[in-house]
């Protein structure tokens, strides 16, 4: 296990260095996040629908699509000079490769979310002070699930002609359960309800994470092996 994690971290660290050197996906995702929140802020009518009812959906729509921008890049960078071929010839375990990509993607998405959340609070003036920790926990729980699935699917579509389009089409149906759960829990938290009321949704998010991280770890090798 230690060897699997060591290899995974080697891959993740390389991806992080490459991304922070080129800043292609991160900058796109951050700009996208800021733009979407700005558009929603000016596009809504606060007298028609209370902000508190609309805010959780806006937050998760923004996070989901911003994350997709970063997920696409995970395996595209392995196609440059066919580095993936080198990875597959090496003793790198396929599960380590998946975990490495998952770790890097989680860090990219976490960075986008850490910028997006303050912007969201700023634009929508929602009271997150009292529920910040549980809210960050819910964001982490939901993010792990959809990034786990997204990382698997980005490997699946990387060699296709319309990888970016296909990723969205394939991924969105799988994101419905964690997104519904995340929106519901976020709404409860922002509405000042106790976390215990969200226990069912939290269990769903946890089950989704465990199920899909395990499944994706098992299935990943079939997406990269010829």
């Amino acid at each position, binding site marked *: 296990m230690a060897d699997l994690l060591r290899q995974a971290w080697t891959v993740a660290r390389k991806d992080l260095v490459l991304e922070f050197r080129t800043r292609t996906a991160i900058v796109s995702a951050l700009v996208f996040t800021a733009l979407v929140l700005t558009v929603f802020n000016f596009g809504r009518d606060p007298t028609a629908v209370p902000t508190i009812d609309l805010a959780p959906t806006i937050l998760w729509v923004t996070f989901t699509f911003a994350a997709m921008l970063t997920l696409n890049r995970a395996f595209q960078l392995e196609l440059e*000079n066919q580095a993936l071929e*080198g990875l597959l*010839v090496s003793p790198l375990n396929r599960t380590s490769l998946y975990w490495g990509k998952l770790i890097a993607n989680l860090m990219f998405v976490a960075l986008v979310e850490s910028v997006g959340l303050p912007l969201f609070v700023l634009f929508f003036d929602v009271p997150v002070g009292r529920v910040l920790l549980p809210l960050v926990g819910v964001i982490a729980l939901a993010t792990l699930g959809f990034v786990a699935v997204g990382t698997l699917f980005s490997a699946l579509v990387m060699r296709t002609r319309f990888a970016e389009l296909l990723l969205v089409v394939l991924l969105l149906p799988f994101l419905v359960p964690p997104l519904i759960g995340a929106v519901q829990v976020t709404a409860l938290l922002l509405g000042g309800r106790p976390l215990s009321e969200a226990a069912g949704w939290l269990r769903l998010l946890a089950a989704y994470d465990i199920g899909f991280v395990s499944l994706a770890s098992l299935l990943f090798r079939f997406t990269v092996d010829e």
Partner: protein
Amino acid sequence: MLSAEGLRHAFRGGRVVALDDVSFSLAAGQTLTIFGPNGAGKTTLLKVLAGLIRPDAGRVTVAGGRGAIGWIGHHSHLYGHLTVRENLLFWASLYGVPPSARGVNAAATMRRVGVADWANQPVWSLSRGLVQRAAIARALIHDPRVLLLDEPFTGLDLKAAAALRALLGELRGAGRSVVLATHNVDEGVELASVVAFQRRGRFVQLAPRGGRSAAQIAEQYRRAMAEEGGGAGGGRGVDG
């Protein structure tokens, strides 16, 4: 060190036969040079040997497993936005080179292939020949026991090609087994201890080089291809 038994592989539902009953065995210090025209199945064979493609039938045995293989394919497998040194350290880490030895190995390998002066340059900024040298360094960073080389001279100038030939000679002397695939008889002959001619997935000839000269092998290659139905285009360096 390396053996292949009855390898068969086909693409497009069996319509394109890439490997047809290929078998051979290489001991330590031997170099198998495979000559064949485009589409003969050389790259598929190397990919099967490297474990990139699972053959439809047959078996490959590499002493030491995947970690013992050094692979140079048609692409460099290098990350453009990492420097040559960073690339080598990354690959050394994946191949389990101990952390304390990575820097030393990387420096020594870069000196060996002549890219030490470009160690801190990002790969994207290098010329094609330098990228190929860096790719060779990547393949050697873990001191592999088996080297699989697919057209390794591509992009190298005459001096660099001669240096690579000398390096491969050194590796053979150090007991490394090498499989080299090329369409150019001039390139691989002097390194070969075993010579194979491949066409339509089959080894139409597999024999020790013996005392044959490059010219003799080129002539035999031309005839072997002609007997198999033509298409070698006259032997040396043609029919890319």
